């Protein structure tokens, strides 16, 4: 039993995936808040007087939407790590998500700054539903990969 680079990669990925799970949950909550906004009658009577609560919520949503880029970077980062560690299977499992991230970022609306979401179209029901679905799929993916990395780490530690 030896502590190899591959084992280190898995440990790091394990920690980062935990962070990604957290991001994904945040993402889902943010879009849910956007969607169900109007169903909250207390907010509704105060559309013109944004309450402290509402401002807080807006900030929360904004932050969640800003977390997209870090998420992508983290994912790219441990993909590169796995590449260096020559963990081909793990890398292969992550490729589809990597490709999806690249595609998603390439096809984002015209924007001068970084970011993915366009405030003028985000309220469109199709896009909202898509983003929510995306969040759930990612959450599932990250959860599965979390356990996979755990397994991978132990396997690498034991076999070497």
């Amino acid at each position, binding site marked *: 039993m030896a502590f190899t680079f591959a084992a280190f990669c898995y440990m790091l990925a394990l920690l980062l995936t935990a962070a990604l799970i957290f991001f994904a949950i945040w993402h889902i909550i943010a879009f849910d808040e*956007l*969607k169900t*906004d*109007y169903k909250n*009658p207390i907010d*509704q*009577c105060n*559309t*013109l*007087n944004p309450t402290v609560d509402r401002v807080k919520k807006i900030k929360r949503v904004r932050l969640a939407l800003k977390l997209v880029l870090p998420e992508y970077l983290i994912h790219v980062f441990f993909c590169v790590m796995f590449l260096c560690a020559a963990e081909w299977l793990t890398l292969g499992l992550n490729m589809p998500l990597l490709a999806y991230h690249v595609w998603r970022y390439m096809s984002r*609306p*015209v*924007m*001068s700054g970084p970011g993915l979401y366009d*405030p*003028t179209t985000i*309220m*469109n*029901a*199709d896009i909202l*539903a898509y983003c929510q679905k995306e969040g759930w799929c990612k959450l599932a993916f990250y959860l599965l990969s979390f356990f996979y990395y755990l397994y991978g780490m132990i396997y690498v530690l034991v076999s070497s």
Partner: protein
Amino acid sequence: PLICKFPLTAPSFDFASDRRCTSGDSSSTTTGSASPVPNSYESLEGGSYSGTSLQSPPAGVPAKLAPPFGYNYPTMHPAYQQNPAPKPDPSPSHGGYNPPGYQPYSQVLTLLSSALGGLGGVSELEAETLRPVNLLQERNILPPKRAPPPEPNLSNDLRKVNCSPDTFRCTLTNIPQTQALLNKARLPLGLLLHPFRDLTQLPVITSNTIVRCRSCRTYINPFVSFLDQRRWKCNLCYRVNDVPDEFMYNPVTRSYGEPHKRPEVQNSTVEFIASSDYMLRPPQPALYLFLLDVSHNAVESGYLNVFCQSLLDNLEKLPGDTRTHIGFVTFDSTVHFYNLQEGLSQPQMLVVSDIDDVFIPTHDSLLVNLKESKELVKDLLNALPGMFTHTRETQSALGPALQAAYKLMSPTGGRVSVFQTQLPTLGAGLLQSREDPNLRSSTKNVQHLGPATDFYKKLALDCSGQQIGVDLFLLSSQYSDLASLACVSKYSAGSVFYYPSFHHIHNTAQRQKFQKDLQRYLTRKIGFEAVMRIRCTKGLSIHTFHGNFFVRSTDLLSLANVNPDSGFAVQMSIEESLADTSLACFQAALLYTSSKGKRRIRVHTLCLPVVSQLSEVFAGADIQAISCLLANMAIDRSISSSLSDARDALVNAVVDCLTAYRANGSNIQPSGLIAPAALRLFPLYVLALLKQKALRTGTSTRLDERVFSMCELKSQPLQQIMHMVHPDLYRIDNMTEQAALHLNDSVIPQPPLLQLTAEKLTREGAFLMDCGSVMYLWVGKCCNETFIRDVLGFPNYASLPSNMTEIPELQTTYSERTRAFISWLYDFMLTLTLMQLFFSRDDASTKTSFFQHLVEDRTESAFSYYEFLLHVQQQMSK
């Protein structure tokens, strides 16, 4: 196989159908190439053509049609006449618009209609709208008059108080019970709104408490039910609410204890004067800022004279009160501000040349009280056109000027009117030319329909946040990237005006249009710092909004400015079954600050029946509303995906809907293309949409004009769109008093609507085409001299000038009758319409614009109506 469809509603995007979608591109290319076309309009002038005959096709029409259809054009007429039905049954229900020569009504079809189910108990009205029509045989499909919108099938009491269809319309006047039923009908469900329309009659209510549902905040409306004297049940969320004491007293009848007689409960359109609960800050004053391009190009076009004159004329009529403020900023490669402080002897110009970091030179005197500084403002307007006559500055720093305007206005909010004549070339937001003129008529994909930069969008969002609305007037002869520029108005709830090749002398038609638009623009009502919320019965939800605004939340639109000429469209979906209710209601509430500084809420409520049968859904289809909503969806699609996708989706909307209808009455297999009477104009309107500048391919269309047409389709109210898409054509040289309307003391003749085909034009007649924002008069070569003399005021055809834009006021009955008819058409539109007159021998540009509206005719690259029907039929049989 790629299927291009609109996801009519979110959960139902259906990939299941395996019908292949023929790309609109390929089909239009083939038809295009098959015709070494002599334009059929030319033949009209050639004189060999006697327009009224149904038998002879226009001389110039190509004899052969493109391969995919296998039909030859000349067979069209026999095909119209052939009668596949074994037993012709000339039914009286055809009304007057079916010439006796045609007997398309058949036993088979009547059988079909009875097979449609549920017909036993339906009303006569519904039976009529469900009457199957074989489109391939029904030649005169247009009703003799512009058809009124379908009446919802409600009890008389409800119908009487329901919202006017001019303000609030639903694509399906019978709301399907479930999403599944809606999917089966393959029709879009949505609303078309014209919330701030100029109204002649509007109950205004001042009361301390505005009665609203405690749970969903719906305003009390005619469709709520009173359980007893003290309680009412909300018609949207079904919560039972208390009636407040104040509401028990009726100010109209001055009686107590009759809450159901209050004006709120008697009218579906009311306006409340809002209390301070509805204010975030004290209501803002009316504030107008004019941002004027004064570069060489702008001076050359001469718009400044027109603008300044127009503003001078209308200075008194600007909506506002004693607090009204006004300001001016001009820009070329630098930004110029004008100090109009009361007490100055003349306006002071301040130049800011640092356009990378533009700042406001002085804070309090750039926006001045109009009343106090009126003389200075007048001085400035008189001097302005002369100030830049010798400018050599060709650059335009629109972006920095807009930033300056934003900084200037942000403390209060208001309206910024931008006049731009070229591509912005300096500072933030500069744009490059993206149009390749060689691709103007390409049938391949049209690119650059979206913005090149998000500068204008971001700025618009900032403006929207500070309650600043930006209206854009683009008066340029070259490409100016309207796709990018228009964003500044789109998201700040402004409006866009475009005058291609504007010149104050060389292009009188554009100048007059600009003048009339300005006149209307400056004097029309305006609402500031507005929000609009749309609520609907529990179970229905809003899917997408269309129009100019920023969506703040799923059902809330933020409108920095609201004007009476803008319309909105809303796509809806059915999330929960509506089975336990028989009525569905929609309420649009517009909260705004009037130009007099009053906070007001305008509430419209629409009530519609809920149905469970597919045939009833078809019976209640409002084809005009459907077409408008589809147009909006198509434009979104062409920007997000591609133009050819959007075109395919439009065609598929017709194909799907007619297939669904056929499948519904499937026990008989009729030949031909069957549509319910309520939807018989569907293919025609979709064809007309495909021939709009916004969506056409193959015909040379400048990118800016295309984008402008898209902006118009998205932001105009329904009536305006319908006139634009499918104008009304009348023959006006032989109007009689038969069937005339008698309004007040004037007689308004009612000539029948003509189909939009060159066949209907004769050289002996004079034809008026009403396109909403413009009217064309086409005078045939052999038009009778009395008409030309008595109505147009010229001795004969040869002496008619080429640029007439008004019908002269002559004291003959002939002229009076004609003018009465035209002004009656005007009244319908409420906005000022420009009359464009032109004659068949005239310059090409107006002639083309007249003939491009004849949507039923075939063009080099697009189907004729009959070909389109065959195309639809072919798609259906796949």
